[in-house]
């Protein structure tokens, strides 16, 4: 749907196994209700998220991408993978701008295993934000990929 | 004058030979009752008896060979046990249990047979027309009869009637005989339970109902109904449809 009112964004989330994925689990266990727009892909560490994955997601029509890992500075299960993710996402936001994709569509968040509510809030917030922003401009006809 | 409609399920080996029965259809209009000839009175499925009442019979007479004679060894004992359950069920439905009678007769003796029929017929005349007959037929009893029919069609009661003789006369799996009174008490309990569950099932298949509503209709304590619904849920007979304010409403599930 092109009309912003009916537009349901598709969000791909790369969640690290130890913190963010566990936070999403906690949202589940706590039955915290949030918008159903995210599709979670589990990775062991946010530092594992190759920029190529993110670009692929946008190419395939994701309206937004979330990378979520352990809190800075030292929650990372793998010592400092979260810093690596931070650096990559910052760089990638610039690249996205060159492609004509609003950098806000890529989001990096730190979610701990005890922050189920935070995870749910991020989801609701992202959905709202992307609804305002409209569909991924790489999508033609408001949905299909060229 | 009231002419009762009486159906007699009569054992081939108990039926006096002078009465002519064409081989097909097996039913012959006998002046006082319609006779259905069966190979053995033990063959009578309780479902058929209840169905016969549902279809408007004023009385059902079962006639078999006297104990211990049975052409099929123990058919008459089976008939006795089934009649017992049917009478228990009838008493729950509101239809007079006396409308069902099991009698013994010898094919060689015509007089006793006709005495039996006459006596039963007179009794039915005294009872009057079945409440299920006519324009003002009693819906409640009819639905009870249907529930009873579903109850006897269900596995539990069939198992118990089928095995009563073995368990009370011979030995159960543990090499013990179950005293008759004990078995009858158990039977009472299960007949009550199965009748109530099928009644609830029937009611909720027609309309979404709450525990309280069901309790009012069947005239039982709501606590008992809730308990049945819990058990029926685990047997997939019933399910919660939705909750209105503070009242859950249930619907029957199709029993597979």
């Amino acid at each position: 749907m092109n009309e912003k009112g009916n537009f349901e964004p598709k969000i791909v989330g790369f969640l690290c196994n130890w913190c963010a994925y566990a936070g999403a689990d906690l949202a589940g266990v706590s039955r915290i209700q949030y918008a159903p727009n995210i599709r979670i892909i589990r990775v062991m560490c946010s530092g594992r998220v190759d920029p190529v994955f993110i670009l692929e997601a946008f190419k395939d029509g994701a309206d937004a991408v979330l990378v979520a890992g352990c809190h800075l500075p030292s929650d990372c299960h793998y010592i400092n993978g979260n810093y690596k993710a931070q650096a990559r996402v910052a760089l990638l936001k610039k690249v996205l701008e060159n492609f004509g994709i609003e950098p806000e569509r890529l989001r990096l968040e730190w979610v701990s295993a005890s922050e189920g509510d935070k995870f749910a809030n991020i989801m609701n917030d992202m959905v709202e934000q992307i609804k305002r922003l409209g569909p991924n401009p790489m999508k033609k006809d408001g949905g299909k990929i060229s | 004058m009231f002419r009762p409609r009486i159906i007699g399920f009569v054992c081939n080996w108990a039926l006096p030979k002078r009465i002519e029965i064409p081989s097909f259809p097996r039913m012959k209009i006998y002046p006082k009752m319609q006779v259905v000839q069966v190979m053995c009175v033990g063959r009578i499925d309780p479902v058929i008896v209840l169905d016969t009442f549902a279809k408007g019979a004023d009385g059902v007479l079962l006639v078999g060979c006297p104990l211990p004679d049975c052409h099929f060894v123990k058919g008459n004992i089976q008939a006795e046990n089934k009649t017992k359950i049917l009478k228990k069920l009838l008493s729950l439905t509101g239809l007079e249990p006396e409308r069902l009678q099991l009698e013994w007769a010898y094919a060689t003796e015509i007089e006793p047979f006709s005495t039996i029929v006459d006596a039963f017929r007179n009794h039915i005349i005294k009872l009057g027309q079945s409440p299920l007959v006519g324009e003002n037929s009693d819906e409640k009893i009819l639905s009870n009869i249907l529930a009873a029919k579903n109850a006897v069609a269900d596995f539990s009661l069939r198992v118990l009637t089928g095995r009563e003789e073995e368990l009370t006369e011979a030995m159960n799996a543990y090499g013990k005989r179950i005293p008759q009174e004990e078995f009858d008490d158990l039977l009472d309990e299960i007949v009550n339970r199965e009748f109530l569950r099928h009644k609830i099932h029937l009611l909720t298949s027609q309309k979404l109902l709450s525990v309280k509503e069901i309790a009012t209709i069947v005239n039982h304590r709501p606590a008992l109904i809730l308990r049945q619904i819990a058990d029926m849920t685990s047997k997939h007979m019933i399910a919660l449809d939705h909750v209105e304010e503070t009242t859950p409403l249930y619907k029957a599930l199709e029993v597979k």
Partner: protein
Amino acid sequence: MAEVKVGAVLVVGGGVAGIQAALDLADSGFKVYLLDQSPSIGGVMARLDKTFPTNDCSMCILAPKLVATGRHPNINLITKGELIELNGKAGNFEARVRKQSRYINESKCNGCGLCAQKCPIEAVDTFNENLSSRSAIYVDYPQAVPLKFTIDREKCIGCRTCQEICKTKAIEYDQQDSETVLKIGSIILAPGFEPFDATQKSEYGYGRYLNVVTSLEFERILSASGPYGGLVLRSSDGEIPKKIAFIQCVGSRDAQIGNNYCSAACCMYGIKEAIIAKEHVPIKLSCSIFYIDIRSYGKEFDDYYSRAQEEYNIRFVRSRPARITEDPRTNNLYLHYVEDGDPRIEEFDMVVLSIGMQAPKNVETLAKVLGIQLNGYNFCQTSVFSPVETSKPGIFVCGAFAAPKDIPESVAQASGAAAKAIAVIASERGKEIVEKEYKPERDVSQEEPRIGVFVCHCGINIGGVVNVLEVVEYVKKLSNVAYAEANLYTCSQDTQGIIRERIEEHDLNRVIVASCTPRTHEPLFRETVQEAGLNPYLFEMVNIRDQCSWVHMHQPKEATGKAKELVRSVIAKARLLKPLKKPIIKVTPIGLVLGGGVSGMTAALELAKQGFEIHLVEREKRLGGHLRQIRYMLEGRNPAEYLALLIEEVMKNKKIRIHLNAEVTEVNGFVGNFKSKISYDNGEEKEVENGIVIIATGATEYKPVEYLYGKSSGVMTQRELEEKLAEGEFKAETVVMIQCIGARTEAQPNCARICCGEALKNALKIKEIYPETEVYVLYKDMRSYGFKEDYYREASAKGVLFINYTDDKKPKVTNKNGKLEITFWEPIINEEITLEPDVIALSVATIPNPDNKRTAEMVKVPLTKDGFFLEAHMKLRPVDFQTDGIFLCGMAHSPKFVDESLAQACAAAARAGTIICKKTLEMEGAIAHVDENFCGGCRICENLCPYRAIEMKEKDGEVTAHIIEALCKGCGICGAACPTKAITMGHFTNEEIMAQVKATLLEEVKA
């Protein structure tokens, strides 16, 4: 002649405590006989709906442990069993066990349940607290272990229906009770507790009033697999209640009925039940909890209590209702109680009685058979310095039988008891066990992917929202999906069998389970596929519970759609999955214990008794820690004496190397192979190798700024008061103690647990030495849980006055011309009272060590919001961390009494022992690999790797990267950065993740 010992242990009781003890023992190389009276293990926990304080679904977290126990090659389950005779002594017992007949051949029964469907006889379902019926042939619950049916001989009429229907010919009516004699070296008792019989409190009308239920009944009512499918209903009429009252302390803290003790868990489960009830009820439900004291003394429990008040608007009424009456017309209930001095009558739709724990039934017989002593309440007699030891050597105790307690403490105690049981027979490790053998792995490299998908209903946890059958039908249409089915509980033991069968039947070479979180359930399913001859990495999981049904409860359509897409994306990944080998690493059988207090010393000693070398590192110049400052115990024992003996034992033990005036400053490496640095105050450093780390660094005391502390000599902490009492320097006519200093405040919201006990101890000591001294205790809630309640009663009886205060009416302390004055509100007489005490004793909190942050970062483990160490799972892994090989005990975990620290220390030792008892460990297989042909030798990965798991090697003049397998943790940072894509991340390859991304977003287009 050498003493003959047996490397086997008998565990009596198969609840969560018994299960934990059995698993720890079996994983440490000992044979275990797990005996339970019931037809299946699981105990009370299996009947609970949710668990506090995380609100985890009880069955969800228990099931993996049940399954692990049921499948463990070293655990022999003896269900419907009873211990009838015991001979021998520690190290070599002979136990005679009677096993009641199930009338079912356990090896033939496959748990299909057809018999139960056809059985004409019904009985009350005791598992559902008699709220529904079950057949005369039955299994307690769908996930039961072992999943073997049982005939209820009381009810069965012997009609032979089941025998005729059973496909496996498992029914054996002539099966007799049998007896066996087990040869064992030690025994652990975990028989649990008996719920209080609420009919004894006739004033509450339980048994007469239908809408008065017990808390255990309420658990079943709340449970999705309970009698009402999780809907809260009144028993009288099946209506949803709008107003529920919870009455605490029913059968506890009640001297009249002989149970003066506190049942320790009821406050928390009462709060939990109120919270969950509000979540389960579609209308606005009002919940009121009637209590004497809210005893939320455990780790982060007060947080939970606050949430109950603030987020869930649960009303708390400090009052013990006198009685309940019923309106016979509506079956509503009138609660008669007194609040703020006024008698009140309030109407409720339903009342839940929070029933306490009693000693298990027939415990006297068991005690007699075993020759152990019971305490005055018929619980097991233990002592404060040997909390898991019974009065008889070689027999240990854990769980509620030792004293009423909650699940995490039962679990910790269970591991602790395992450590003690092992110590008796440490020399016999490995002698009675068998190694688990798997089918040879099938080579699937030449096969097209044939994917099997198993979608879990999880009772109604998933199926209640997500249309599971629709998901199954959907995935069947996707390419490479060779098979798909729905399961009621995919995690149940019988489903594991089904999965294995399906792998064979359909030649599956990839398996996907769509159920809950891989964080808890992946190991179980991996093992299942491995048993069927598949490499465990050919398995994948989709989390459609935590990501669909539980978070989109009111959007079934969207939740179902999302579930399909999630499964679709994982199927895309599964097509590309490759088998991986798990590297084997050697284990250094040496332990490193941080902290030389009573916890650290005990952990070290227990491991040393198992034969392991231990480095015990203490910052101070001598051992002893916090206990050194304790002069006497509430229970009357002499702490100094005990400590001296313990220190002596530690010093004498040749296996323990003590490092005083030292700190651990570096911990590198990984489970089994740590390299740590010990730095001494004199500047020296030492490197040690160790296989495990135990953190026992303790806690510290809050330094008060309140109530003129430090400004007036009459104001002191409880510890200072204790010191004065012990040294004979105490002199006072009036003492006022103020509780909760530095705890239950905004800054430190949680309870510090031990201060109420400290106050009671000092109050009783004062009354013992100076009976004329007046003692007042100003408290928020007196939290003298468990048997400590006896001391609370004793103090009251001796004239100590306990006066409740609240945060909005805190006591005021002033110094008037050198004389202390305290003013506080007396709630019973409703008046302000002013006293001039000689001593004001502040019960100050135990707070986290400020150093925790550094330690946590050093060993890579998390802390709680409060700053204590955060264990792997609050309920079931109380002394583990998510990071393998690192364990936790004592006050570093949270404030606790000495006996609790001791139990935890033993637990940490037992858990650590399961690792260092092995010569080698199998490591994670999902690690990085370098394709040398593509590697340009740029060294980017080498610098990025946080574990130094990449080294550069030269071969034929070309420098390429190599992975050190044992060091690689599989984070994938290197793979994400490699410019030539030469690095492949096992199980998370670029291709796999990209395929997953694509399939997430795009419908599959079939060729």
